[in-house]
């Protein structure tokens, strides 16, 4: 199950909890990725909508890997510049396969996870259409 937080993710407590949970399960590497909201184009932060039924369904294919454990958290609603909206960690026996999984996982996440991002600027919530990717079958109703 994906962990969701309203607003910025508590980075260190979450990573600490994941580390404690999996440190004695035979993994030799924990590779965290902490996505930080950048102060691009004068934004005050980002905001997110999630569609949880399909988000959890998307994540299920990453849940039962034989040689790795992947955990992730994502924010909904507003996240300020400097806070984290996306946090994940990959546990593997050795670091090499962990880095590979991390890259594949984040790429798949960016392309397929049903999440919508908005810039927050001058109190307005503006859909980040320039960074958004169409899902498979997009345009079928057009």
């Amino acid at each position, binding site marked *: 199950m994906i962990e969701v937080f309203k607003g910025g993710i508590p980075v260190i407590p979450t990573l600490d909890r994941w580390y404690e949970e999996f440190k004695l399960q035979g993994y030799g590497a924990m590779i965290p990725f902490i*996505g930080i909201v950048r102060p691009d184009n004068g934004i005050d932060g980002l905001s*997110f*909508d999630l*569609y949880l*039924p*399909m988000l959890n*369904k998307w994540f299920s294919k990453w849940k039962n890997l034989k040689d790795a454990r992947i955990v992730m958290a*994502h924010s909904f609603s507003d996240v300020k510049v400097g806070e984290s*909206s*996306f946090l994940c960690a990959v546990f593997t026996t050795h670091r090499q396969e962990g880095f590979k999984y991390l890259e594949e996982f*984040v790429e798949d*996440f*960016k*392309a*397929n*996870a*049903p*999440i*919508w*991002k*908005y810039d927050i600027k001058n109190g307005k919530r503006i*859909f*980040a*259409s320039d*960074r*958004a*990717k*169409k*899902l*498979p*079958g*997009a*345009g*079928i*109703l*057009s």
Partner: protein
Amino acid sequence: MVIVEFLGPIGKRPLKLKVNTIKELKEELNKDESLKEWLKECAVAVNDKIVTSLDVTLKEGDKVVILPPVCGG
């Protein structure tokens, strides 16, 4: 009746429609001018599974969601 939800930035309230296929859904939604630009970009899921064919049939109580381009992280 099927329930149609518009996700993310579309900002439209859910609809209940009498449609039997995705093709009929397409015809119905294209009557709404405010949706036309979105429909060019959006994917469709039936009961939370993405569909890519207009021939998919719909049954009473199905939930259809309209998904704009995504951007997590």
